[in-house]
């Protein structure tokens, strides 16, 4: 069984007099022990809200509704009461945030911010806690840790701060670590160091890592499995290599194509996805990406596209996916064929996990 199973997670913000915002809509994914899973998408696609909902850290406000399940090691995190949730947070599931400066308390020394986790979950106090904190800082690559313990966040460099935050997150050897764009606020050389550090930590301790990012470079370097999010839905899930080699969802295709290349010719233009994310669709429901999609067909509008399970454990939500390389592009109608008419898939495809809305179909074998 997976370590974390997120099933049909939805987060809506309702405001009186305003349209309800579906920030996350039926997101499902799973994380196995020791696995590195990526949640990828552009700003506003619901990556961070997904992680905060799992952690129970969404700001409490009227109109907020969280639905679905997030089963961690047999317990549904969304059903827990506040106290048991606090027991799990920081001990079994830890989180690293985007901006290391604002994520650290400016008026408290780094030492206390590390030891408070140890005191809370491991009952360590005084000199023992301080010794352990120094070892943690040392482990995440902060030189002269004893001195750093007494310093304040503003006295540390950006990279150091993120290392300190990582030290706090791994202090109790959690089984799952969620990293919400941990390198966004850092410059490139430091980014590489921090990613290397995270990789090392999860490899050595067997911690599973959920990597939230918009950076496909990070995904390529770290993730075993990738979930691409768009408009609050998972639009494609695949192992890393197949995803990069043959993306199926047009959004994934666009994302990959939009990465600037160093070896591009002079004067070659960047290749962005046209348009921008919008939370208002001009129709009732349907594929959120359709307004920007080059492969849009009539079936895209009306109802959300069904989840298609491919033979290699990949799944995507698209009625007219990008063709696999080396095959003739299937006619648009083929992608929209009703499930009943599809031939029986292989056993592997049948086993693949699928989102619940609507009933998954199997892909026709090319």
């Amino acid at each position, binding site marked *: 069984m997976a370590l974390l199973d997120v099933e049909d997670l939805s987060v809506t913000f309702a405001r009186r007099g305003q349209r309800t915002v579906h920030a996350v809509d039926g997101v499902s994914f799973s994380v196995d022990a020791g696995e590195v899973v990526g949640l990828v998408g552009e700003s506003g696609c619901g990556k961070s809200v997904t992680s905060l909902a799992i*952690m129970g*850290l969404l*700001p409490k406000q009227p109109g907020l509704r969280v639905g679905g399940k997030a089963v961690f090691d047999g317990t549904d995190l969304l059903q827990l009461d*506040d106290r048991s*949730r*606090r*027991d*799990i*947070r*920081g*001990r079994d599931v*830890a*989180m690293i*945030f985007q*901006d290391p400066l*604002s*994520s*650290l*308390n*400016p*008026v*408290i*020394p780094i030492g*206390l911010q590390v030891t*408070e*986790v140890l005191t*809370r*979950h491991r009952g360590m106090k005084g000199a023992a806690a301080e010794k352990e904190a120094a070892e943690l800082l040392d482990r995440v690559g902060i030189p002269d840790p004893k001195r750093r313990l007494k310093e*304040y966040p*503003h006295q540390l460099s950006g990279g150091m701060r993120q290392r300190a*935050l990582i030290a*706090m*997150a791994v202090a109790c050897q959690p089984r799952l670590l969620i990293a919400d764009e941990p390198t966004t606020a850092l410059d490139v050389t430091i980014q590489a160091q921090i990613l290397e550090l995270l990789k090392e930590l999860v490899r050595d301790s067997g911690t599973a890592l959920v990597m939230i990012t918009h950076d496909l470079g990070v995904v390529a370097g770290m993730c075993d499995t990738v979930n691409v999010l768009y408009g609050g839905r998972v639009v494609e899930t695949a192992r890393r290599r197949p995803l990069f080699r043959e993306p199926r969802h047009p959004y994934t295709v666009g994302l990959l194509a939009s990465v600037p290349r160093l070896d591009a010719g002079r004067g070659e233009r960047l290749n962005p996805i046209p348009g921008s994310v919008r939370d208002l669709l001009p129709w009732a429901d349907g594929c959120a990406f359709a307004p920007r999609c080059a492969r849009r067909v009539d079936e895209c509008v009306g109802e959300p596209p069904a989840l298609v399970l491919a033979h290699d454990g990949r799944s995507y939500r698209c009625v007219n996916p990008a063709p696999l390389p080396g095959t003739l592009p299937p006619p648009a109608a083929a992608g929209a064929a009703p499930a009943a008419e599809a031939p029986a898939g292989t056993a592997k495809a049948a086993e693949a996990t699928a989102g619940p809305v609507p009933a998954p179909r199997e892909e026709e074998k090319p």
Partner: protein
Amino acid sequence: MFRFIVRRLLQLIPTLFGLSLLLFIWLRRLPGGPETAILGERGTPEMRAAIRRNMGLDEPILVQYGRFVRRLIRLDLGTSTSTKRTVVTEFVERFPGTVELSISAMLIAIGLGIPLGYLAARRRGRMLDHLSVGGSLIGICIPVFFLAYVLKAIFAENLGWFPASGRQDPTLGATRITNFFVLDGIMTREWDAAADALWHLVLPAVALASIPLAIIVRITRASVLEVLNEDFVRTAEAKGLTESTVRRRHVLRNSMLPVVTSIGLLTGGLLSGAVLTETVFAFSGIGAFIYEAISQRDYPVLMGFILIIAVVYVLVNLLVDLSYSLIDPRVRVR
């Protein structure tokens, strides 16, 4: 740290000279003079001129100022024209009363204001929040002297719960050491005297506390609301810390920064509010005495008292700045 304090104290010198020069010219421009106060309406022009000459008021204003400064350097603030006692004596006798009153008012304002503001923020949009925000608005709007009269009328004159005037019941014959009556009572173990002095403080302190209390409630509330949305509070929550640890260590401490600043600034307003409150309650502090000195055109007293108050104000704000650096390590005093 030490250099910071010394530098701030040195900055005080030009401030005081500027202030004293302004005050000096300004006071002597007021219509009427000490001779009117002494002689009343019946004095002849000759008598007035004689008094003015006697006091040195007939000389050019800069000459008078030069003499004032020369004395000031020797820490001599002159003699009151109305009580004939030295300004310093008057001050030492009266200032403790005002300090007692101001400290009590500030303790009420801080002791009630911070918890109220904090709770209002935690229960944002609920009854307690509306009550404290609305209440603080009323607190800011009501003039201190009006509130003082209302409190006096209700709780002293009608209900008789508190004394209506004075600092202490003179029939107790309490021993005086520092002129801080509460402190004196404690030092001499005259507990009844200390309690009586405290009892006399209640109504004036409540009246004086109204505006600072209202401001502290609002600043605390706004500041807590802001800090609750900070990323580091989310980090603290993500660590699984208990709610009370998150509040105490991460929310409250960070939200105190603007509150501390405002406390320093409010101290100035407290001293001017004390003038009105002390007058209403016949509370013998510097406030009532300054009021008296203005109507008597008692120049030495006004000059001396206002300058000393300025020094006190600067010292209080120095203390605030120092405590600020204790709360926030980013503020380095150099």
